[in-house]
């Protein structure tokens, strides 16, 4: 049994290494999106797995946006807003944090790992942090493996 478990875990790790995650990143126009721009200008390297969606504020993120991304087979969802206290619209990032927490609970109830959804806070000057966040999320999602919904989509 133990050998089988090791083999299965090795196979899983190999499969996960080959797996290219699909991550949806909802980015606030005033911080994460600008940081992504800066990361580009600085020629910073980060994994190509995140699909960026620009929003006027992270507070524009609805629970439904996150659920729809998961439903359509996203392996991970990132919501990226300004640093705490720095929201262009005063408290949009706090609202986003609460909605991300609510979405995580709902997703957990369906049997999907809540770690597939995360909130990040950064400023427009933090290009390196933007790259780090994408890298961290990509690694985490690779560890989790493809979304079970994605597998059922490709069947």
């Amino acid at each position: 049994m133990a050998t089988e478990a090791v083999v299965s875990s090795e196979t899983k790790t190999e499969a996960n290494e080959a797996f290219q995650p699909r991550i949806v990143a909802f980015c606030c126009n005033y911080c994460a999106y600008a940081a992504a721009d800066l990361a580009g200008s600085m020629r910073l390297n980060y994994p190509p797995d995140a699909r960026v969606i620009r929003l006027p504020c992270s507070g524009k993120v609805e629970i439904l946006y996150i659920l729809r991304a998961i439903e359509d087979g996203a392996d991970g969802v990132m919501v990226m807003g300004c640093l705490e206290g720095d929201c262009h619209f005063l408290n949009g990032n706090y609202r986003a944090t609460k909605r991300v927490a609510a979405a995580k609970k709902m997703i957990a109830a369906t049997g999907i790992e809540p770690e597939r959804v995360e909130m990040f806070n950064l400023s427009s000057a933090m290009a390196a942090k933007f790259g780090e966040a994408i890298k961290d999320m990509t690694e985490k999602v690779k560890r989790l493996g493809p979304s079970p919904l994605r597998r059922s989509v490709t069947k």
Partner: protein
Amino acid sequence: MIVGERKPINEILEMTKPFERIHVVGCGTCVTISLAGGEKEVDILSSVLRIAARRQGREVKVTGETVERQCEKEWVGALKGKVRDSDAIVSMACGIGVQVVAEMYPDVPVFPALNTTMMGYPTQHAVWLENCRACGDCMVHLTGGVCPIARCAKQMMNGPCGGVQGGRCVVDSSIDCAWSLIYERLKAAGRLEWMSKIQPPRNWEIAGSFGPRKTVKEEEVIT
């Protein structure tokens, strides 16, 4: 307005587990305003039901729509086509809406997705206070516009009780003492002597203790 609260997702998933064609029905009136069962919440719950089903490898068709008022047959009648194609209905209305749907479509099981919590006053966005209990015999003109039936934990007609601490309720210090509020209001209005008027015991029959109540406006009834 009537305030509702969505049941825990696990509970809703458990109720709807055996079904493969689920129609989620919201209500566009009170529970839309109380952010529990309007269009947005219908979309969210439908999405969650689809995700859960696919996670378990089940083929489940989940559709959703919101009617203007689920407590009125005229609006609920419009669901007929969708109900015909469904083997379960999940109602996101208050308890009245759920019962109207159940009465109109007895062949299809109807599941409540909300717990109807109270009639509430929105103190701020997404926060409601129970300021009325529909006791059937309003007396707030005597109490400075503050209802002691809904807002006093002991429903005292002649308060305050001895437990009031700095204007806070003895039962829960996060609640304002209704009778302290009444005192302050009457004092500010120069009608403090109203506090000394003794209120007689109430007739609780009209508050619902004598079975379900019925309201009829005779001159408007169409026969």
